[in-house]
């Protein structure tokens, strides 16, 4: 089987090489059949890589430990669900996932434009195949997923317990889909620049892909945050970690592009800016992959012993140099067709939003790469922490949310006093009402949070106003009842109203972020059974200890040998709120040196947090049980001396009983944070809005819209 995989990779590289040649040759000589053949090479690549991926996936499911990557990241005790996801937990496997997703998305993109934009598509084909060739070469020469060992080990190391969390199944594929989708607009931008056809056509072709990239990346980031919040025992959802930042940067420039492309479509402006954003987004996506793969920056995500730094630096260098060359050499065709009419117009507001987003991206870039920058300049590696990031990102985020409320209601070209009064009254009242209510409720000690809530009020009111007006207008024209009119309104202007829904979602999300970060109560304390502590307005009492022994055969569990925990009673005043059961799982280390009993619990320890989540607040709890007491350690030591490997689980049972009988005080971590739930709800709203916007319009509607926009274009030119 491994041979089939290796052959697939070699074949894939050959197909890439042929495709690149055919695409470039075809477009240079005008021989269409070669460009066509290059496109088919992409389809072929998708089939080959699907086969390769299937080979690896099957190896994981069949516990084929002859594959090194299977032996390193999976085991018989790893539950099936996580075995299937373990494919992308290793360096090699995630490279394969990258290349595979790239081939699928490229095929789809090129299939959709198969009858249009031949020349642009040919260059895009070459670029996309170039990326594929790069990743396939890495897998052939640096980190092959199909390396094998003979004879095969009897058992694998197992999937890292920290990764045994349901979103592990979708977080990496989502993020990688986002990253790979970012390269499609980049490829078409290169095509447009190379052929000097930089009008709105190529933008229309990739618009949906840019949106999909943005959506996938956003969902991936949010799932990562969710994982961090409910699996990593620190209770935060964002830590300005290098890899988190790496995924956020292309998302920010992608957001900027999705806004500024509308200006190019409508007014033929900002061409240089748009191609630059697209090229930057693609490059940042590759840099994001590079950060994880190279281990160049310290991060909880960095893979130890990663060696892919040099090839990635070369690729990024080519991308940056190529982008600059293309934009500079084509600047004559990139001139704007119009000038900005007024500083008070939707165009200039979009520009402002772009500037803020790019500034945000730049701040994060600087902070993320600061260790490298400072090492280059001063010789010592130094890094900046979350407070540094917050200092810049908080005000920028405030401006951004405010702009997302102003954008929908300000007029194109030039806003006059009259239409400003008409459009801004309701949103301003919304913001004002929020302010009055919150000040009356006594929420004044955190000015930034207060400002964020008011901005959100502004956004909600402005979007609501747009929906109400639109619905009313449709009722006036078509005479439909309100719900039907609303539905028809959204269906006919998916992009616009989907976008507004996204704005609401983002505002909701930021309300959650502002509230949970500003009004959080956290307590870390050592508590004995029966003891209690106050966290905010809640009292948490340690009722009794728990111990669960997970038999090795039990596949439904995530596979820890022993889980020690606590039953906690959460109350507010006299009222019982919830009973929580946090625990910590102790995993087998597989190290014989730790002794027959010791190794069973000597591996990773993973927190299983327990929380009572609600619309108004989350009560989050984690426990770190103390197993280093002399009584417990004695059991392990005696067990190591007297018990064989088969008998060792008996000692774990004794240990668990002893822990329950004489529980030592345990270290607890409690967090009460308000409105966290709204971060995830906001994310869902964004996702819903994104789906509305991206959903293909019925073909008749599309044709009509195309006709209208063409005639509008003609009028604008005339």
């Amino acid at each position, binding site marked *: 089987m491994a041979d089939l995989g290796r052959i697939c990779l070699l074949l894939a590289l050959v197909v890439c090489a042929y495709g690149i040649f055919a695409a470039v040759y075809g477009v240079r000589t005008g021989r269409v059949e070669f460009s066509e053949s290059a496109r088919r090479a992409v389809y072929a690549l998708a089939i080959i890589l699907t086969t390769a991926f299937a080979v690896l996936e099957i190896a994981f499911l069949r516990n084929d430990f002859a594959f090194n990557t299977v032996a*390193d990241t999976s085991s018989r005790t790893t539950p099936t669900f996580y075995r299937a996801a373990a494919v992308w937990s290793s360096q090699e496997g995630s490279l394969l996932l990258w290349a595979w997703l790239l081939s699928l998305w490229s095929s789809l993109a090129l299939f959709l434009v198969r009858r249009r934009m031949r020349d642009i598509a040919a260059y895009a084909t070459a670029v996309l195949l170039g990326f594929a060739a790069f990743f396939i070469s890495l897998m052939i020469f640096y980190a092959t997923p199909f390396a094998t060992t003979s004879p095969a080990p009897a058992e694998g190391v197992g999937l890292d317990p920290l990764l045994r969390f349901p979103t592990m199944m979708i977080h990496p594929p989502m993020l990688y889909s986002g990253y790979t989708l970012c390269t499609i607009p980049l490829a078409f931008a290169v095509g447009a620049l190379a052929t000097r056809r930089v009008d709105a056509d190529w933008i229309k072709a990739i618009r949906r892909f840019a949106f999909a990239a943005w959506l996938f990346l956003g969902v991936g980031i949010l799932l990562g945050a969710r994982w961090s919040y409910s699996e*990593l025992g620190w209770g935060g959802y964002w830590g300005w970690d290098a890899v988190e930042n790496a995924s956020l940067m292309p998302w920010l420039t992608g957001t900027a592009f999705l806004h500024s492309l509308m200006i190019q479509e409508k007014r033929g402006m900002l061409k240089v800016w748009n191609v630059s954003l697209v090229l930057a987004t693609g490059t940042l996506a590759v840099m994001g992959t590079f950060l994880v793969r190279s281990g160049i920056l310290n991060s*909880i995500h960095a*893979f130890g012993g990663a060696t892919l730094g040099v090839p990635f630096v070369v690729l990024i260098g080519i991308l940056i140099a190529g982008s600059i060359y293309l934009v500079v050499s084509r600047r004559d065709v990139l001139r704007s067709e119009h000038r900005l009419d007024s500083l008070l117009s939707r165009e200039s507001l979009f520009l402002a939003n772009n*500037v803020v987003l790019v500034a945000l991206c*730049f701040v994060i870039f*600087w902070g993320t790469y600061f260790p490298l920058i400072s090492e280059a300049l001063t010789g010592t590696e130094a890094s900046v*922490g979350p*407070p540094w990031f917050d200092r810049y990102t908080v005000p920028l985020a405030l401006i951004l949310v405010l702009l997302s409320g102003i954008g929908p209601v300000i007029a194109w070209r030039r806003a006059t006093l009259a239409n400003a009064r008409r459009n801004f009254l309701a949103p301003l009242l919304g913001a004002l009402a929020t302010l009055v209510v919150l000040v009356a409720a006594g929420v004044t000690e955190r000015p930034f949070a207060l400002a964020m809530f008011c901005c959100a009020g502004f956004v909600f009111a402005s979007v609501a106003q747009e929906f109400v007006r639109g619905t009313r207008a449709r009722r006036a024209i078509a005479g439909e009842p309100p719900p039907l009119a609303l539905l028809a309104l959204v269906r006919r202007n998916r992009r616009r109203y989907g976008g507004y829904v996204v704005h609401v979602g983002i505002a909701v999300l930021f309300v959650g972020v502002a509230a949970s970060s500003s009004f959080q109560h956290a307590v*870390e304390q050592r508590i004995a059974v029966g003891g209690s502590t106050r966290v905010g307005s809640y009292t948490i009492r340690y009722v009794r200890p728990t111990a669960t022994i997970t038999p090795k055969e039990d596949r439904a569990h995530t596979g820890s040998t022993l889980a020690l925990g606590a039953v906690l009673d959460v109350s507010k005043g006299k009222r019982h709120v919830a009973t929580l059961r946090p625990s910590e799982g102790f995993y087998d280390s597989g190290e014989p040196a730790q002794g027959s009993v010791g190794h069973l619990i000597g591996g990773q320890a993973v927190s299983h947090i327990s929380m009572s989540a609600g619309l108004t607040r989350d009560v989050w709890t984690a426990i770190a049980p103390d197993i280093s007491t002399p009584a417990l350690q004695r059991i392990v030591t005696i067990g190591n001396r007297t018990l064989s490997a088969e008998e060792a689980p008996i000692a774990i049972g004794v240990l668990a009983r002893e822990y329950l009988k004489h529980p030592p005080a345990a270290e607890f971590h409690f967090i009460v944070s308000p409105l966290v739930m709204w971060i995830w709800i906001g994310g869902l709203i964004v996702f819903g809005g994104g789906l509305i916007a991206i959903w293909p319009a019925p073909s008749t509607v599309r044709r009509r819209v195309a006709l209208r926009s063409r005639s509008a274009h003609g009028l604008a030119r005339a």
Partner: protein
Amino acid sequence: MRLVVALSAAVLLASALIYTSFSAASPALSPSQLLRQAQPGRSYQLTGKVVAGSVRHEGDGLDFSVADRVGGTAIPVSYSGTVPDPFREGREVIVTVEKQGGRFVGERNSLITKCPSKYKTAPAGEKQNY
């Protein structure tokens, strides 16, 4: 005119970034470098391996020693706050520390562990890669 405004705003932001990042940053040092360079009152990012047998729970805190990746220099650190799950003896950690008197005190909740060694490829010789 607009270009001038935009450019000066960009320059302003950039210089603020440069200034604040250099003043707020804490240099990353290995234990032996730290022993040589540490000044009281500044914070440093100490990176190295947790010395086997050095981890001790003291009340709410945690004491451990961090050693150079290669070589023997080790520094004892007293730390308090969240301990990441993968924290183990022998594992590589990064912790922000400050010199207080003769000892190094870890900043609360600043302890990071590098990814578990499971991600590392097995030592050469054990497996034949081809």
